[in-house]
């Protein structure tokens, strides 16, 4: 009997320790979830506007980009393009040209991105449209580039992920004729200035 009581007491003593372990596990899980959330901010917007026909949603998966790795470049410009694209893992775009208060949506989204831990890279403001580029780095490498454009009834949220070299972004922008992506050209212009 004494043995049983002593075992129960042992368990009671162990409880706070177990609690700490549980808290540690929960903490680690929450940390992981936060990490995942940071990497998928555009997913949140895709889900939010999934049924909204005024928004066009574009997804290009890593399988598509992997096709480029099978090609051989014949010219310098092809080589540049291949180099820029082959390291990408995906592209997502959410865009609309009929947002009444697109400036407000732009502000709201920028705050959302800031709160999700992205680092601001560049902003461009003009009378009609504003844009903001943010990045997420890991081990010194840019693994996601987010672009937000808002104003004049237009709104674009673009996420490019994979291994990103900013110098190559404008090459992709020049070569791919996707609405919204052309704004990335301004990154190179800003660097030159």
């Amino acid at each position: 009997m004494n043995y049983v009581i002593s075992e129960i007491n042992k368990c009671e003593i162990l409880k706070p320790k177990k609690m700490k372990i549980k808290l540690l596990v929960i903490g680690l899980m929450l940390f992981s979830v936060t990490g995942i959330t940071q990497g998928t901010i555009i997913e949140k917007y895709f889900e939010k506007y999934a049924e909204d026909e005024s928004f066009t949603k574009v997804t290009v998966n890593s399988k598509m980009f992997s096709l480029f790795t099978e090609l051989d470049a014949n010219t310098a410009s092809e080589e540049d393009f291949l180099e820029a694209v082959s390291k990408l893992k995906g592209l997502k775009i959410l865009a609309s040209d009929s947002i009444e208060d697109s400036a407000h949506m732009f502000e709201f989204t920028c705050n959302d991105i800031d709160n999700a831990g992205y680092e601001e890279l560049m902003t461009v403001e003009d009378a009609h449209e504003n844009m903001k580029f943010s990045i997420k780095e890991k081990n010194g490498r840019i693994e996601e580039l987010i672009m937000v454009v808002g104003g004049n009834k237009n709104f674009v949220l673009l996420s490019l992920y994979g291994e990103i070299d900013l110098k190559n972004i404008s090459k992709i922008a020049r070569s791919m004729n996707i609405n919204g992506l052309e704004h990335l050209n301004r990154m190179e212009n800003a660097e030159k200035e």
Partner: protein
Amino acid sequence: MLRKSNFLLLLVILGLTQSLLSQEEILKSYVDTTSNKEFCFYPSTLRMINITQNEDYNAMVEEIDKLLIYRLDSTARSDRSYLTVLEAYQEEGFEEYAKMYGGETNMHIYGKTGQSNEFVGVFSSKDQLLAFYLIGTINWLKIPSLIQNFKQDDMINIFDF
């Protein structure tokens, strides 16, 4: 003559490719009742629509083995039954490569690479709904310069027939 938007559409279709012996039957059995027009291209016919014999275009299509394009009817558009065909391809191991939805233009592209690379997809715009099946290899690198240099009279608009 081919409008720029249609040319881009053709480029995207051609740009999502790669060899032969395929699972095109799934799509073929679907379009038996839903398609009102069918186009079948081989390397020679792909070059024929290139009126000005643009070298980049010919280089891009030279390794395409076969391209099937179907114009689907209004029933397919309204009941969106093509989505079940795409699901059937997913069950056969095809993976999603790209999609665009919402708004007037929608696009779904699935592919299966390996010894025989095949791509299947659907494009819908305000005017038409097209399904395609592509087998072969394409030189993707020619697409950017083609987009930049394309002129309206360069190609025959197959979608006008």
